[in-house]
């Protein structure tokens, strides 16, 4: 299903010259409304209209792997302004399984989340749980860690599970290879991912309600990436993800593949960069033209007492905060910062799990607020200035700016001061 494109009434002359409102299908499960495009970088601010609600982009999507966001209720998540979060097909497919979730009215019904859900295909687990898997043309064979049973996750099976889950955005099953792998395996995986994309498209039972995204592979090889882009963009999918990155690869290679990808992805469709969540990475990759991001980092690091702040992070469990009666961030409006001090949270970590929840709430708020600010600056035409301020706040001095970020931003006409 093609996405419906709408052009915003902004000052971009190219856009107003086009003035095209293409409604390809009567019932489209995804509409991307481009509100603003940064004249300096490749950044965009959009409204992504999905079946359950509208999502403002750029957007960070928290990860709720097993149908829950680690100690946070759906009300709390809504209250933080989240409109889309992730569930994981592999995990949920194992427990509690697609049949049960279908009985529960899909994952939305099961977890009682009224806004949007994106499900990963299960492909990433091939890399993260690689001891347990074997890849063939058919699919990925997993040995279940719970009961030792062998399961075949084929493109058809993955889509079937995701159809049962009923997510608003589904990901194709891709042949994922660690970004540190080189050689013919990378090319094999890229080609297979294209074939699997076609199988996924065929297998989708609910194209008018569930959006299937393609995932661009090709590792760190520009030619392979380009080949993959050329092929996949010929398919009629509502959105594209940039995959196979955010592993252990060098950041210098990482950003080059990101920008190559966005150069060759259609403007009118959303670009989802998978597995990226560090603040600096988010800001830079927005500048490189990405709209959507997900990462377990903010929620995972919270449970270890690490609170994300504009100048880095704060290890709340560390002794130095025992008598620090300031909130984590005095500018932060999240429920945690409005009521609790670092000292109290530090003490609470010794007594109750709620300490983790406080930090999780703060970290999600931090990520969502960051993306909001980025979006606002794009809409107001001052994203390059935002980047400067952001970097100055994040790093004590110019020579501490990561060189990859400096290079990446330079490539989109932002010279860091």
């Amino acid at each position, binding site marked *: 299903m093609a996405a419906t494109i709408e052009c915003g009434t902004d000052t971009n002359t190219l856009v107003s010259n086009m003035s095209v409102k293409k409604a390809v299908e009567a019932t489209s499960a995804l509409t991307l409304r481009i509100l603003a495009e940064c004249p300096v970088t490749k950044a965009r601010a959009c409204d992504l209209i999905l079946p359950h609600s509208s999502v403002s982009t750029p957007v960070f999507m928290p990860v709720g792997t*097993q*149908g*829950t*966001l*680690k*100690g*946070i*209720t*759906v*009300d*709390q998540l809504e*209250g933080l302004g989240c409109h889309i979060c992730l569930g994981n097909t592999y*995990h949920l497919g194992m*427990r*509690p399984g697609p049949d*049960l979730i279908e*009985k*529960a009215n899909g994952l939305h019904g*099961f*977890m*009682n989340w009224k806004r949007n859900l994106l499900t990963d295909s299960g492909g990433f687990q091939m890399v993260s749980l690689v001891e347990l898997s074997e890849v063939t043309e058919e699919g990925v064979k997993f040995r279940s860690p719970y009961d030792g049973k062998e399961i075949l996750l084929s493109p058809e099976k993955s889509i079937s599970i995701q159809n049962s889950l009923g997510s608003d955005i589904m990901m194709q099953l891709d042949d994922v290879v660690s970004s540190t792998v080189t050689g013919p395996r990378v090319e094999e995986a890229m080609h297979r991912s294209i074939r699997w994309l076609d199988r996924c498209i065929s297998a989708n039972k609910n194209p008018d309600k569930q959006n299937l995204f393609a995932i661009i592979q090709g590792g760190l090889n520009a030619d392979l990436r380009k080949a993959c882009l050329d092929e996949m963009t010929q398919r009629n999918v509502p959105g594209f993800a940039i995959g196979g990155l955010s592993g252990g690869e060098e950041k210098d290679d990482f950003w080059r593949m990101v920008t190559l990808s966005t150069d060759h992805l259609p403007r009118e469709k959303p670009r989802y960069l998978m597995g990226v969540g560090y603040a600096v990475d988010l800001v830079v990759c927005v500048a490189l033209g990405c709209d959507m991001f997900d990462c377990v980092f903010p929620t995972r690091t919270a449970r270890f007492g690490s609170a994300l702040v504009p100048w880095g992070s704060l290890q709340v469990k560390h002794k130095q905060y*025992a*008598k620090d*009666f300031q909130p984590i961030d005095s500018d932060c409006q999240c*429920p*945690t910062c409005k*009521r*609790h*001090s670092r*000292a*109290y949270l530090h*003490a*609470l970590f*010794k*007594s*109750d*799990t*709620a*300490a*983790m*929840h*406080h930090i999780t*709430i703060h970290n999600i708020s931090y990520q969502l607020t960051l993306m909001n600010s980025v979006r606002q600056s794009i809409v107001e035409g001052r994203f390059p200035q935002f980047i400067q301020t952001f970097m100055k706040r994040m790093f004590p001095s110019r020579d501490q700016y990561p060189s990859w970020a400096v290079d990446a931003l330079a490539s989109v006409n932002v010279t860091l001061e």
Partner: protein
Amino acid sequence: MSGSRMKLELTRVVQGRSRLGVLKGLGKTGQHSLEVPGCLLYTHLGTVPHLTQDTLHTLSPLPCVTQVNLSNIAEHRDVLEEFKDGFRKFAGLHDTVLYCSLHDPAAPCPTGYTTNKTVSVWGSGGRIELTVAKFMALQKTVQADWYQSMADGETWQNTTSRKRVRKSVDRTLAHLDECLLVHQSSQELKGVEVFGVVEGGDILEERIRSARETAKRPVAGFCLDGLQTGSVDQALRIQLTSAVIKELPEYKPRLMQGVGRPDEVLDCVDAGVDLFEGFFPFQVTERGCALSFNFDISPDPERAVLDLNEEDPAGGTQENGDVNLEDQTQMTHFEINLKDTRYQDDFRPLVNGCGCYCCRNHKRAYLHHLLVTNELLAGVLLMIHNTAHYHSFFGALREALANDKLDLLTRRVLGGRSKQKE
């Protein structure tokens, strides 16, 4: 205590024993009141386990008295001293009355460390020894609205000798006198209430002696210690409690420490106890269970049909509710074990008709999934439900007392679900 604002206003006394009323004049401004029989809001360092403000305030109404304990707090003394403004502010607590106990009722501590002059609490870093001086210094930094006096309650093992029990009574009285001395000369503790602690193990004479002597002191109320669940059997607890209560003034509240099971609560209320520590919902939560016992005694026959609350709880319960003396963590027949596979595809709320956030938004199947996958949200949702259910039980208890239906309520609560197919 001259000038004590805490006042127990009784509206009913049933058979000369169980009481219904309101404990008024609570808090620094004396504006708060707590209905009795009632229970306190159990916390770890001021936080209801698993809950943040948003999740906590889905519970309504909340008991107006929040309990903290020195086991959680003692290790943070120097932080509180530097903070200066008291524990309530340090914890960012809502507008609530703060009660400070010595121990955590849900965390029994090792014995053998009490001396004539000291008691010990266990923080996250290990044992902290408290003299009365240290205890009172802590109270001054905590700035609770009310606290229990320092006490030696290490008499709950059935191997405790008579001599040891006597010592616990003597020491506790001595500590009380010392505490009161410091209290009365402390500007920081002006307006703060003190409860005396009645000890005496399982020895009737010692219990009576402790009660008589404690009642002579200017305290605002009484804690009954050493009778916690698992320390003595129910019948003996009631016998000792009744004997103790005969020695205590009618117009001062009585708080039973370490008792939380609904059946035991009912027996204690029948014997004249007013207040309980609200830790039982937490224990139920920690074992992945949901409170589900029925306390509805409305005569509506249609309701009785709805209350066909299905099966007996899965596995591991004992038939007559005897508690394993060693293990307070064992499941009771007041709850359902959501890890059981029978709940895998049960799309009903935890308890039909429960208005808590969990029951309004989620189903048993989801809770089962969260527990099986070890997800943190399970604790959050269960804590909400269990707290709501338990506090509703106390509401029903008060209503039963008001309408002379305590017997009926007791039968309903003890009946077990299978008997409800009436």
